């Protein structure tokens, strides 16, 4: 094995149902390298959230295997070790916050792990500073904005000192400002904190910021690579109901018209450059 922190092998999962079981994951092989920032993109029902829940043993595979730092998630004796290695942040911050004081909530994870009190204090302070919520440590969570709440939820996971954080559509319920806050925090964690990040999303612009992009549809991985390369497969993405960033879409249309433009412009700036070169 290389430096993979998470590895899935031929992962299958189906919900039991009347008659034929409903297949959600249909053979997913994925390796996530330690320290990377991976976005998993997919439409509703593509199986991306189900995949996320397999990464720290909330769901166990119906077929195939998931390994976290070499530990099989089906091994119940390793459960706590797996969950402290891979932390998980969900969509609705309200339903993840346990305590009614920010710092108490942040302490919940380390308390469960039996960390000594002084050490918990240090970890909580560090985690709250990492997400920029230290000044709010004595606030009641229900008085914070959505973005702030989600950052508290992230801090609650960070206080467990996980090596990897899986975020399942963490910005889906937030306003644009909240989204920017949370995304900034996630990127910083990965770049400055060296934490492996797996971001489940259906926003193109969020996915575009990752180092690697995995696209899922019908329980399978249909594209995997750098966002720049993946977004060039415009037809394949559209076929599964996903759009591409507007910049790529524009260049693609131009290309359909027979113009010679590159497809790999993700930012407005790059797109403008490409158009400028075309015109000059």
């Amino acid at each position, binding site marked *: 094995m290389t430096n993979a922190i998470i590895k899935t092998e031929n992962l299958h999962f189906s919900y039991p149902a009347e008659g034929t079981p409903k297949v959600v994951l249909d053979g997913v092989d994925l390796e996530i390298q330690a320290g990377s920032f991976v976005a998993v993109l997919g439409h509703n029902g593509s199986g991306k959230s189900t995949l996320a829940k397999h990464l720290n043993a909330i769901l166990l595979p119906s077929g195939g295997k998931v390994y976290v730092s070499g530990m099989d998630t089906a091994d119940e004796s390793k459960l*706590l070790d797996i969950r402290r290695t891979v932390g998980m942040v969900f969509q609705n911050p309200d339903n993840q916050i346990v305590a009614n004081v920010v710092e108490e909530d942040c302490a919940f994870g380390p308390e469960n792990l039996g960390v000594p009190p002084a050490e918990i204090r240090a970890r909580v302070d560090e985690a709250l500073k990492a997400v920029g919520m230290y000044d709010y440590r004595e606030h009641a969570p229900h008085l914070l904005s959505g973005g702030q709440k989600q950052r508290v939820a992230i801090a609650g996971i960070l206080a467990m000192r996980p090596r990897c954080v899986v975020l399942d559509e963490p910005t889906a319920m937030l306003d644009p400002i909240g989204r920017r806050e949370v995304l900034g925090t996630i990127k910083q964690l990965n770049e400055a904190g060296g934490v492996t990040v797996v971001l489940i999303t259906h926003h193109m612009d969020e996915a575009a910021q990752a180092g690697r992009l995995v696209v899922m549809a019908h329980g399978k991985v249909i594209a995997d690579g750098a966002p720049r390369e993946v977004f060039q497969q415009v037809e394949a993405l559209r076929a599964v109901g996903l759009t591409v960033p507007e910049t790529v879409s524009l260049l693609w249309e131009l290309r359909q018209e027979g113009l010679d433009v590159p497809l790999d412009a993700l930012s407005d700036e790059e797109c403008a450059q490409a158009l400028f070169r075309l015109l000059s």
Partner: protein
Amino acid sequence: MALKDITLGQYFPGTTILHRLDPRAKLLLTVLYIVALFLAKNALGYALLAAALVAAILISKVGFKAVFRGMKPVFFIVIFTAILNLLYTAGAGEPLLSFWIFRIYWEGVRSAIFMVLRIMLLISCTFLLTYTTSPILLTDALENLMGPLKKIKVPVHELAMMMSIALRFIPTLIEETDKIMSAQKARGASFDSGNLIQRARALVPLLVPLFISAFRRADELAVAMECRCYHGGEGRTRMRQLKYAGADYTALVIGFTLCGGVAALNLLGVF
């Protein structure tokens, strides 16, 4: 309906000595005070207890207004108890007043006044406890004080956890109730017109979505807690450690003195 006015378990942050006391000491002090209330048999005892509470309220700086506001919902019960005591206490001497089938004796007046005082002091002192102690500390204190019960298989940790989660979700659910109410009103529902039965029926379209969403929240919270390695109280540590200090011992001594004092005053037998 003013849902935001609910004072149950409301906490006024502060830095007075009453706020800083160990929550366990405060809880015990409250229990002692209640015991003293039930020991009191004469006016002197009640006067002593009332004076102690007034002093405590002054020290806490939460203000009498807040304490009285908390008493509003029980006002009806207080009046009701007072009337019952007044009418149904039989006395030895001549009745002070008699009409229809009722006879009011001096003993009735006395027990009505004492009962009203007792209920009001009881409620005020518990409100003072919740006003000066954050819910999370209160839960910690309960868990800590009930610790010995674990030996006889009482799920102390689970109870404390349930209580703190309930407290955490009160504001969230109130907010949600407000939202659902607005949504139903926008579709023509009316919550404050019609007779009692109509009003009760109007609550059904409010309660059904509220319950469904509460169950969904509970489900998500359970998963989130598992993700944060929650596995019951075993092997769990706490960031905040409770520690008794000098002031806490003094407070407890005052509590015991109060109990003893009231018991001693009973012997004087004034009124």
